[in-house]
């Protein structure tokens, strides 16, 4: 049975800042919901459903969507909370539209990690009997992965620093991330130890921000005021919970997710013009690039800077999709050309346990 196509017709994001000290969650959320309609020809009244991503643990309140429904523009609409990275909320929205049940959906993801201790967000994810008491969590997983990676691939810590510095520079140029002092490779190396051999600037930097996206069915896309970007493939996968049970040099679930998306889209990651990846550390991103078989000379990988300089936890993957939409629609803002295919990726869980991939096309 042929299922309908789904188009992205609007996106919005706040600046991503280490601390949005002067704004509450609802301020950031309502700001992006207000601006996502600009130039689309749609309004909040056209929206059939809202799907949102956020974390109770980061927000410091239970069922946190419940208190944000007004800001989300969800009042008296269908609403769902996906307590996963926003790219999974987008996946839900695509399924809902493809089912024919709805035409216009609003996807929102937000995060204010500055209000809590991000360490708690990660520590509370690992099972509480064996791993949590010994202090094994996200950073330790990234450290172990990096140590194995460097040994196996014969690369140096300096390589990691240079990679990170490049991403920070791209983010600075992209101008949607607050960066006061741009770190060079020396500064990355000199930053404090996070998880040996990784320094703090080799890990993703948690930032505050909100992201919104407006998605519609094919018929509605025709009356949109701007060029739609179509979602043509989706895939996701999960690895074993304990990082010790995984091969640190593989990301099996990313591979599975990419293969699933490629089957739907009819083309694989290698053939993408634009790639936006989420990773919690430099090595995580390097591994993802390898596993997807990407050639950075051919595809524009994380031109936004990716998640290293700006990781709005729970919104990072959706942010990648927003960045890819921008690059597909406005290639003149980058290095021109006529890109037509983008691959976007979101991840969550300790050591990237859970991965989601989508393909976008114009």
């Amino acid at each position, binding site marked *: *049975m042929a*299922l309908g196509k789904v188009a992205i017709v609007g996106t919005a994001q706040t600046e991503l800042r280490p601390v949005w000290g002067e704004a509450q969650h609802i301020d950031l959320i309502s700001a992006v919901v207000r601006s996502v309609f600009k130039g689309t020809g749609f309004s909040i009244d056209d929206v059939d459903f809202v799907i949102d991503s956020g*974390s*109770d*643990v980061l927000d*410091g*309140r*239970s*069922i946190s*969507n*419940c*208190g944000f*429904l*007004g800001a989300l523009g*969800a*009042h*008296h*609409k*269908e*609403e*769902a*909370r*996906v*307590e*996963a990275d926003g790219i*999974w909320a987008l*996946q*839900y929205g*695509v*399924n*809902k*539209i*493809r*089912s*024919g*049940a709805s035409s216009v959906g609003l996807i929102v993801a937000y995060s204010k990690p500055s209000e809590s201790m991000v360490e708690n*967000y990660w520590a*509370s*994810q*690992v*099972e*509480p*009997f064996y791993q949590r008491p010994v202090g094994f969590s996200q950073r330790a997983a990234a450290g172990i992965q990096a140590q194995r990676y460097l040994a196996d691939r014969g690369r140096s810590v300096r390589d990691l620093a240079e990679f990170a510095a490049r991403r920070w520079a791209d983010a600075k140029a992209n101008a949607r991330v607050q960066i006061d002092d741009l770190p060079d490779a020396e500064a990355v190396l000199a930053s404090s130890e996070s998880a040996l051999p990784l320094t703090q600037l080799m890990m993703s930097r948690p930032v505050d921000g909100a992201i919104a996206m407006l998605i519609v069915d094919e018929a509605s896309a025709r009356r949109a005021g701007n060029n739609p970007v179509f979602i043509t493939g989706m*895939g*996701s*996968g*999960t*690895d*074993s*919970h*304990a990082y010790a049970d995984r091969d640190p040099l593989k990301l*099996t*679930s990313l591979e599975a997710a990419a293969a*699933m998306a490629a089957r739907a889209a009819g083309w694989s990651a290698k053939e993408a013009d634009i790639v936006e990846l989420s990773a919690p550390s430099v090595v995580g991103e390097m591994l993802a690039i390898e596993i997807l078989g990407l050639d950075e000379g051919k595809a524009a990988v994380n031109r936004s800077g990716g998640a290293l300089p700006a990781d709005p936890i729970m919104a990072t993957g959706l942010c990648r999709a927003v960045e890819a939409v921008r690059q597909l629609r406005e290639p003149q803002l980058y290095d021109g050309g006529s890109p037509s295919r983008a691959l976007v990726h979101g991840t*969550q*869980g*300790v050591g990237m*346990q*859970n991965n*989601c991939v989508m393909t976008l096309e114009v």
Partner: protein
Amino acid sequence: MGHHVAIVGVGQTHHARRRTDVSQAGLVREAVDRALADANMEMGDIDTIVVATGPVLFGAVNHPELWVANAIGAQGKPIVRVTSGGGAGFAGALAGYYQVAGGYAGRTLVVAYDKLSEGPLQYSISTLYDPFWGREFAVGIMGFSAAYWRARMDVLGHTEEAAAMVSVKNRRNSIANPYAHMKKEVTVEDVLNSKPLCWPIKLLDVPPISDGAAAIVLSNEKLAAKSTQRPAIIKGMAYCCEADNAPERSLMISEPLAIAAKKVYRAAGITNPRRQFDVVEVQEPYSCFELNYYESLGLCPPGEAADLVASGATDLDGDIPVNPSGGCMGANPIGAVGVVRLIEAATQVMGRNESHQIKDAKLALVQSGGGWANLRGCAVLSA
């Protein structure tokens, strides 16, 4: 147009006040094993998984879906967590429904659970409140629920006696439910004389606190026949919300539930719910809510819920039996309840309900919800 979706396998744990023999992950495993066996499947046949639980603070595990993945044997598969407080299970099932209806999966496993014995319930629910605005005054969701029941008493006549009748009916029905753990018959007088907790809510208006998990297998129409000759077809399903502190919010009729019902009834061709449905399963976190649902779902006009329950129409042998399983009064593993209600309704239209099979049941209505009574949904299942 999307795929039609059916429930082709169900499984739930024998719910208990406290399960000290299994972890949260082990509890999930029990329900999953039962649902897969019931659907005549193995894990390998499942394309995608949805995990639904109550708030993280209930169980002290963040992103619990990533922990329980191993216990389900779900490595390699798409897995996603959907939450919605008390309505989490139902909201999870709805996410699974769209995975199948939208063609992302042929078969989806939805598993929902809560192990409420592990944490302090009222305190963790109180964190639902805005930390700036009211949290220090919160009494879980019970203080709030009692406050608006009190308001409905005056306007809609939802008396203490009427709510007590709900409790009496559901507790009586629970006795035959093999998965329930609260099995004690009570009288209206017992309920009225029970200890006031948040008056007008009294001890016997409140369901037990439970450990439990529930799972369903959803399938598209093409694959359904491999599991069962008699699936429960989802004719319509929706879940709506309202802003919690909106000026017009009266909490009389549940507006999000009425909106959801309107959508679902239109999809399922329901024009006269009282006559068309053979059986109804609702999630009543307190007895008073069941009265509210009768009216919000259109089983009776506003203000007539008390008469409806008093008439016996919603009893087992009434014309519109509500909660033949006993509802939450028999067991209340909060995040799992939405799926439990779906299971009880699905097995009714499949003709194999283990508590009280309603004769020739063909069409069932399911309600669920959470939050500050501002997240509400319903579904119609048919044979």
